[in-house]
C-alpha cells in the first residue's frame, strides 16, 4: 500500500530534500534528545493540522482531517471513538510509525517526521515504548528476551540489559515466567510482557493501541492498574487508543474522535475533575 501513496520518484525527491535540508546541528540535537530527553515544562506532544489520506488506488480514505492535539508530560490520555474514526492512524502518526501528508507534529520539541528513518528508529528505541494488542511479542523469543530487545537496540550491554529486563518483569509480576515463550503464556501475561517491554527503557512516552483489547474484564483491570501505577511512579506520558469506556475512564483525559477529526479534546472535562471523575 505504501508504495501507492505517491509516485515513487516523488518519495525519493522528498527523502533527498529531507537529507539535504537537515543540517548537522539538527541531527546532533536530535541525537542529544534521543540520548537524554529534554526538560519540558509544557507539552511533550504537540500536533497541529495533521492530515493523512490512505489511497488504495480505488478509494481514498481521509483518515485524519486536520487534527490538533496537545499532550502534557506525565499525562495519561485515552483516544476514543467509533471504528474507522482514525484513532490508530493518529497514534501511528504521532509516534512516527506512519508518515503524514501535512501538518506539524512535535515530540519533545522535535519534528520527528523530518528526521531520517534511522534517527527516527533510534529515537523510538530510546524514548518511546509501544503496547499493542495481543500477539505482538516475537514468538521465537522468551519473555525476558522480548523485554530486553529495546535495550539491546539502544546499545545497552547484554548484562545490564538482562538485569534491567528481569527487574522490569518482576515489576509486572512475571518473575516466574521469564524463560517462557509467548505461546506458553496467557493473554494477560503476554500483555504484561508487552508492557514490560514498553517500559524497560524508561521511555518518555508510551503508546498503547487497544492494550486491553483481547482481555477479559478482570485482566483488563489488572493491566490498567499496572499502567496507572507505572504512570504515577515514573511520570511517564501514556497515549492509548481504546474502545473501552471503562479503560478510558481511568485516563487523565479522553480525546474523542469522529471522522478523522478531534470531536472533543477532553480538556474541559479534565479541568472539571478529569476523565476519571
Amino acid at each position: 500500500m505504501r508504495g501507492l501513496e505517491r509516485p515513487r520518484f516523488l518519495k525519493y525527491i522528498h527523502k533527498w530534500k529531507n537529507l539535504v535540508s537537515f543540517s548537522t546541528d539538527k541531527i546532533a540535537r536530535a541525537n542529544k534528545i534521543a540520548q537524554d530527553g529534554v526538560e519540558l515544562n509544557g507539552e511533550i506532544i504537540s500536533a497541529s493540522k495533521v492530515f493523512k489520506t490512505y489511497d488504495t488506488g480505488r478509494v481514498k480514505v481521509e483518515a485524519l482531517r486536520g487534527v490538533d492535539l496537545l499532550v502534557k508530560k506525565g499525562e495519561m490520555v485515552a483516544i476514543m471513538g467509533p471504528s474507522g474514526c482514525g484513532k490508530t492512524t493518529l497514534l501511528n502518526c504521532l509516534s512516527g510509525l506512519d508518515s503524514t501528508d501535512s501538518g506539524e507534529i512535535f515530540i519533545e520539541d522535535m519534528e520527528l517526521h523530518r528526521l531520517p528513518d534511522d534517527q527516527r528508529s533510534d529515537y523510538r528505541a530510546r524514548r518511546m515504548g509501544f503496547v499493542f494488542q495481543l500477539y505482538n511479542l516475537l514468538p521465537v523469543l522468551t519473555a525476558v528476551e522480548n523485554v530486553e530487545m529495546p535495550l539491546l537496540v539502544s546499545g545497552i550491554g547484554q548484562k545490564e540489559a538482562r538485569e534491567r529486563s528481569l527487574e522490569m518483569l518482576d515489576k509486572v509480576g512475571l518473575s516466574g515466567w521469564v524463560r517462557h515463550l509467548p505461546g506458553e503464556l496467557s493473554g494477560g501475561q503476554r500483555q504484561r510482557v508487552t508492557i514490560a517491554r514498553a517500559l524497560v527503557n524508561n521511555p518518555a512516552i508510551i503508546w498503547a493501541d487497544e492494550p486491553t483489547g483481547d482481555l477479559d474484564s478482570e485482566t483488563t483491570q489488572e493491566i490498567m492498574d499496572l499502567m496507572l501505577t507505572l504512570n504515577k511512579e515514573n511520570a511517564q506520558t501514556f497515549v492509548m487508543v481504546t474502545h473501552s469506556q471503562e479503560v478510558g475512564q481511568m485516563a487523565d483525559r479522553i480525546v474523542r474522535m469522529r471522522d478523522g477529526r478531534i470531536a472533543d479534546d477532553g480538556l474541559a472535562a479534565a479541568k472539571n475533575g478529569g476523565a476519571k471523575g
Partner: protein
Amino acid sequence: MQELFGVSMNLLMVILLSIFIAIMAVVGFMAWRNRIMLKLGLRNIPRRRAQTILIVVGSMLSAVIIAAAFGTGDTISFSIRDATIQGLGNIDEIVTSARGGGGFQAGGLPYFPRSRFDELQRDLAGFDAIDGMAPSIGGRAPALNLRTSLTDGQTEIVAVDPDFMQGFGEFQSVSGGDFSLNSLSENGVAVNAEAMEEMELRTGDTVRLFLEGQEIDFQVEGVVEDGGFAGANPTVLMPLDRGQALFDRPGQINSIAVSNRGGAVSGAEASEEVATRLRVLFADRGVAEELRVLLNRQEVLSLLEQREETLTGNIQGDIATLRQELQLPQVSDGLIRVLADSAVRGQVLDILGEGGLAQLEGQADTLFGNLSEMDVTEIKRTLLELADAAGSGVTTFFIVLGLFSVMVGVLLIFLIFVMLAAARRTEMGMARALGAKRGHLVQMFMFEGTTYDLVAAALGTTIGLGVGLLLMAFANQIVAGSSEDFRFLYRIEPRSAVVAYCLGMIITFATVVVSAYRVSRMNIVEAVRGLPEVMKPVDEEAISLRLSQLGWSLIRPLVFLARFFIRLAGSQFAGALRSLGAFALWILLVPWFVDIAAALVKFAWPYVLRGWLTLLFGAYITYLGVGPWNQTASFTIGVSLMIVGLGMMLRMAATRWEGITPAIGLLTAVGGAVTLGHGIVASNALSSLIGAGLLLAGLIMTAASQFRKGAMPPDFVDRQAFTFIGLIMLGWWILPFDTLEPVIGDLNGGIEMFFVSGVSVVAAAVWTVMYNADLLLKATGFVSSGIGKIRPVVVIAVAYPMSAKFRTGLTLAMFALVIFTLIVMSILNNAFGNTLSDADEVTGGWDIEATVAPNSPIEDIRGAIEAEPGLNPSDFAAIGGFIVAPVVARQGNAESQRWEGSSVQAVDDGFLNATEYDFQIIADGYGPARQDVWQALKDNPNLAVVSYATAPSQDGGGFGDQGPDFQLEGMTVEDVTMSPIDIEVLEPQSDTMVPYTVIGVLRAVADNSGNILISKESVDAAFPFPVPLTTYRFRAAEGVDVKETSRALESSFLENGAETSVLKEVIDQAVSVNRGFNNLMTGFMGMGLVVGIAALGVISLRAVVERRQHIGVLRAIGYRQGMIQLSFLFESSFVALLGVIIGVALGAIISYNLVQSIANDIPGLQFSMPWLQISVIIVITYLFSMLTTYLPARQAGNVHPAEALRYE
C-alpha cells in the same frame, strides 16, 4: 543402452509405466470419489501464479537429473555403436588361426593356407545365416606420398579377394559410385578416405610402402569411403594376390572376414548362430568330449553356478549354457560354441584356479589349447555390447552422482509443501472444523501435488535432455583437445525418455504423498496460537484399531465383491457396477498391495518409534550385509538402523524411568572409548579423534543428566536420545573404511557407497546440530554480545531459524549435502590430478617416444642419428630402446602352474642406463636406490622387474581386471620389502622359455609398456632369431626444443615408419581431458547447489510474508531498516554457513577416508585440500545465497511499521 543397474531397459520401462498408470488410476479413483477435495486442491493452483511456477520448478529437479543421465548414457552408447558400425561395415566375425600368434616375431596375424577358406566354403554351402565370406590379408607398413612427402608410419594394408565381396557390399568411391578392386591396374591400389586426409593422397599419386627394408611404389587409382575392409585408420587396399606377393606369402591368407545375413546393424543378431556353426566346424569333437568329461563334475558345476551369479550380460548367459550343456550325455553344438569362446575359457580357468583345482586347471588349459584350429571373434557383437555396457555404465555413474541432487530436489519439494501448509493453516483448520478428516487433507495436497508433478516431470525431462545435450557438447569440447576423431553424437532413445519421465514423476509423487501426510499432521490449535513447530511424535492409535485396519486392507477387494453381489441381488445396478469397478481396480494388484503395505507400516510404526523393531530390523539388514548379500551398503545401513533403534529404546525407557538418562550419555562415552581404543591400537588419527569427541560428548551428556534436578522434561530426554543417535551415527559413518575389515571381512561396495555414506553422514550431522540448536544459539549470543549494535540483529537472525527446526533442518541438510558432494569431488579431482604432476616419475625421465614399424627397425639408433643431416647427436642426452611382446608366464613356487598371459618389455642398455622409473618395492639385497636395481638388470640379464599391475593388492581390489592375467603370488603391493621371486617366461611363437628373477615392482604411475621388464640382452641370448627394437625413448639435452626435435625424428626415420610423440604433451593431454571430465561431473553435481540456493530464497521470501507483523513490532521498538535487512541476511548466512561448515568438514573427512582407501590401489594418491577451489565453492555458494536473500531482505526492511502492525 539396453540395461540399467543390471535390469533390462524394456523391463524397467514396463515396470515404471505400470507404476505410473497405477498411481494415476488410484489418484483418479480418489478424485472421483471425493470431488470436493479435488476442487479444493486444484483451486490453489491458479491462485498464486508465481508460487505455482516455483513449485513446478522445484519438483522437476529429479526428472532433470535422470533425463540428463539417460541422455548422456544413450549418447555414449550410440556414439560407440555408430563408430563400430561405421568402422566394421558388414563385417560381423573374423576367423583367424588359433595356432601361434604373439611373441617377438611381431609380424601380425599368423598365416594359413588359402585352401582352408575353400574348404570352409564347401562346408558352409546352404548355411543361410552367412551371406558373405572373404579371404584376406591384413598387415602394416610405413607409407609415404611421394607428391606431398606426407607420411603415415602405421598404414594398414588390406588385401582381399575382389571376387568374394558379395555380402560385404562394394567399396564406395569418395567421388560417388561403386569401386571394385578388380578395376585396379597391375600396380594400382586404392586408399581410404582417412589415408587421403592424413597423407593428402589422391588418385594419380604414388604411395611408397616400406617393407622389410624394401621400398615398393604403388599407383593410387581410387579413394574409397572408410568402413568395412577400408577400416577407420589410414589404409591401402589391394587385391589378395598382390598382397600375397607384397608380404611374400603366396597361396596364404591370415584372416577370413564373415558377413552375416542382414545389414551392417542387424547382422550382429545372427552372430551367435554363425559363431556356433563356425566353432563347431573348427572344433575337435574328441577334445570337446574330453573337456566335457573333465568339467562335468559337481564341484566344477557349483563353482560355475556361483560365478554365474556375479556376472552380467552375455557372459552370464554363456556360463549358464555351459553349465547346462556340460551335463548332457554327449557333446552338443551349443557346448562347443561356449567352450570355444575365449571369454568363457578365461572364466573357466579362473574358476578352477581360484577353486583350488590346480590339476584340473592344468588339464583344461591344455585341452582348451587343442580344442580348435581357428579362432572365431564375434567382433561386431562384442563391440556393440561394449557400447551398451559403456552407455549403461555412464548412466549408472551419472545417476548415482545425480542422486545427491535428486535428494536435494526431494528435500526442496518437502520444504515447499511444509511451507504451503504453513501458509494454509487457517484454510486447513476450517476444513477440519467442517468435518474433513486428516486423510482428506492428504488427498487435497496430493491432488494439487500430482498436478504439479505431471507438469514438472514433463518439463524436467525436456530440460534434462537439454542438459544432457549441453553436457555432451562440453564433452566434445574436451575430447576435441586430444587428437582423436571420436565425437559424441547426441541421441536419446524414446524408451529412455519414458523411463526418465516415469522415474521423475514417481519420485516426486512419493515425496508429495509423504509430505502431504506430514503436513496433515500439524496441530491446528498450535498453528493458530503461533507456537513454533515442535518435532514430536503423534499419539499412537490403539492396537485394536491398527489390527482391524490391517485386517480390512487384506480383505478389501472381497468386501467390494460381496457388496457387488448384495447390490446385484437388491437390483441396485449402478451401485453394483461401482462395487465391481472398485473390486477390479483393487485386484489389479498395485492398489491392493499398496493398501496392505500402508496398513502394515501403520501397524508397525509405533514399534519402530519405540526402537525395538528398528533395532531388530537393523540387525537383520546387518546380518544380510555381512552374510548372504556380502554388501557394504547393507551392513553399514543395518548398523545405523540398530543405532537409531537403540537410541529410540533408550528414549522410551527414559520417559518411563528417569534414572536411565545418564545411561544414554554413558553409552555414547563407551562408544567413544571403544573407537578411541581402536584408534590408538591401529594408530589411526581419525579414529582416535572421533573416539575422543564421542567420549567427551558422552561424559558431558552424563554430567548434564546428573546435575539436572527433578523430573526430566521430555525435551531434555529427546535431546539426550537424539544426540546419542546423531553422534554415534556420525562417528560410525566417518570411521575409516577398513576399520572393521578384520572383523567382518571384505564386503562388496561400489560407487553407491558414496551416496549412502554421504547422505547418512550429513543426516547424522544435521540431526545432531538441530537437536542441540539452543546451545548454538547461546554460543552465538555469547559471541555477539561483545559487538554492541549487532547483537539485537543476531539474536533475531538466529532465533527464527532455530524455532522452525524442521524447516531449517531441511534447508541445512540440502546445503550441507550439496557442499559435501562438491567438496568430495574437488578433493578427489585434486588428488587424482596430482598423481601425474611429476612428469619424470611417469615417463622415467624421457622426453620423446618414437615407435617404428617392426618389419623395418632402425639398426643402430646413435649411428643413424649421426647419419641424418636433420638431426644433431648432441641434442640427445640419452637414448633407450625396447620392444614389447605378449608372452605367457608362471611363478616357480606358485600353487597354479598354469601359463598365464602377460607381456615383456625388453629394454636395451641405453634404456637401463638412463631410465628414472622408481620402484614401489625393491627386493632384499638389490637396493636401496633405484639406480642399483637398473644396474643389477644390466649386469645380470636374468633379472627382471614387474609392473605395479602385476603385483596383487592386499584387498584384492584396484587394478584387478585391468592388470595382466599373470600375477605374482606371496606378496602384495602394500609390502615394504619382498624376496626375489623366480618366474618363467614363455614366448609362445618359438616355444622359448627363459627363467627370470623378479627383483622389484615399479610405481603405479610409471608409463611402462610391458608388464615384465627385462634386459634385451637376455632376449638376444635366448632366441634363435634377431629381435628388433620397436620403440625408442629420447631424453633431450639441456635447452633443446623438444617439439622440434620430435618432428625432426619423425621425418628422418620415416622409412622405418617412425611415429613420435612428446611425452609431456601426452601427459598434459591426459590430465586435461581427465580434468575436463571431472569438471563436467562437478558441474553436473553442482546443479543441486542451484536448488539449495533457490531454497534459501524461497524461505526468505516466505519469511517476509509470515513475519510482517513481527517486523512492524521490531521497527516500533527501534530497529532501523538496515537492522531488519541485516537480520534477514544474517539468518540466511547462518543457515548457509552452517551448511558450508558441515559440508566442508564432512566432505574433507569422507574424502580423506576415500583417498586413503584408493591409495592402496594407486599409490602417489595423496590427500590434500584444494583450498583455492574450496574457497571458490564457498564464496560462490555464499555470494549467491546472499544475492537470492537480498531481495526479500530489502523487502523486509522496507516494510512500513504502521501498516505491518495493522496487517493480519
